[in-house]
C-alpha cells in the first residue's frame, strides 16, 4: 500500500467563511497544536516555550500550554520538539484533536458574549490573553489575537456544533 497517499480532512473543511461588515467567522488551517504539560513546580516554562519559536504559545491551564501553528508539523519535527521539551515538560500531539475558528469584527466580542461569561472588554481580556470557557454548551479555548479578533480552539468532535452555534449567534449582525 505504499502507493496509497493518505489524505487529510480538516474538521471544518467544508465551511466557508461567513463575512459581514460587523462580524466574520472563518475556520483556521489545521496546522499543529501541541499540548505541553509540565511537572508540578516547574518554573519559567512559558518563556522557555516562547524561546523555542515553534509557534504561538497559549496558556492552557496551570502547568499546561498549547503551542499553536498554522503549518502542520512533520512526525520528525514533532518528535524533536518532544525531546527538546523533556525533562522540563511533556508534549502531547493535539493537532488533529482540536479545530480552530477565528472570529473577527466589531461585533465579535458581542457574539461571543452570547455564549461565554468571560468579560471580554479590552481591559479585562487584553490581546494575548487566553482562557478556556463554556461557549453555550461547548467548552472552548479563547485567545484574543487582536482588539476585534479572537481565536477559538475546540475539541474536533464539537467543532461543527460550535460553528453552527456561532453562525446562529452572529446572524443578527449580518
Amino acid at each position, binding site marked *: 500500500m505504499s502507493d496509497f497517499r493518505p489524505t487529510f480532512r480538516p474538521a471544518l473543511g467544508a465551511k466557508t467563511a461567513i463575512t459581514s461588515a460587523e462580524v466574520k467567522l472563518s475556520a483556521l488551517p489545521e496546522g499543529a497544536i501541541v499540548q505541553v504539560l509540565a511537572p*508540578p513546580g516547574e518554573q519559567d516554562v512559558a518563556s522557555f516555550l516562547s524561546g523555542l519559536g515553534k509557534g504561538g504559545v497559549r496558556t*492552557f*491551564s*496551570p502547568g499546561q500550554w498549547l503551542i499553536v501553528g498554522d503549518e502542520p508539523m512533520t512526525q520528525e519535527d514533532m518528535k524533536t520538539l518532544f525531546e527538546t521539551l523533556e525533562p522540563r515538560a511533556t508534549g502531547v500531539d493535539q493537532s488533529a484533536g482540536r479545530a480552530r475558528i477565528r472570529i473577527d469584527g466589531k461585533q465579535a466580542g458581542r457574539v461571543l458574549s452570547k455564549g461565554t*461569561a468571560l468579560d471580554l472588554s479590552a481591559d479585562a481580556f487584553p490581546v494575548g490573553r487566553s*482562557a*478556556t*470557557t*463554556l461557549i453555550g454548551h461547548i*467548552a472552548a479555548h479563547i485567545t484574543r489575537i487582536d482588539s476585534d479578533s479572537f481565536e477559538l480552539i475546540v475539541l474536533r468532535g464539537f467543532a461543527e456544533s460550535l460553528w453552527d452555534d456561532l453562525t446562529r449567534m452572529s446572524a443578527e449582525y449580518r
Partner: protein
Amino acid sequence: MASLVPCPHCGARPKEEFTVKGAAQVRPAPDTDKKSWVDYVYLRENPRGRYEEFWHHTSGCRRWLVVIRDTATHEIESSCDAAFAGQTDART
C-alpha cells in the same frame, strides 16, 4: 456566591463551568480502620454555614479546587487549588 465561583486560575466563572463533588475531606490512609473509611465515604458533617468542598473547573482549567462556601448564604469565602489546599498562602 454560587452563581459565580472564583477560580484561583481563571477568575470568577459561572457555576455551569464547574462540577461539584462535595465535602473536601482528607482521604484516610490505606491501612486506617474501617470506621474511618465508612466515615470518609458515607458520613457528612453537612453543616449549615461554613463548608469546605471540592469543585472542579470542568469547562475551564480543569483544576480541582477547594472552595470554602457558606451553605446558608452561598457566600464564598475563598477558593484555592486542591493540590495546594494545605498551604495557607494558596487561597484567593
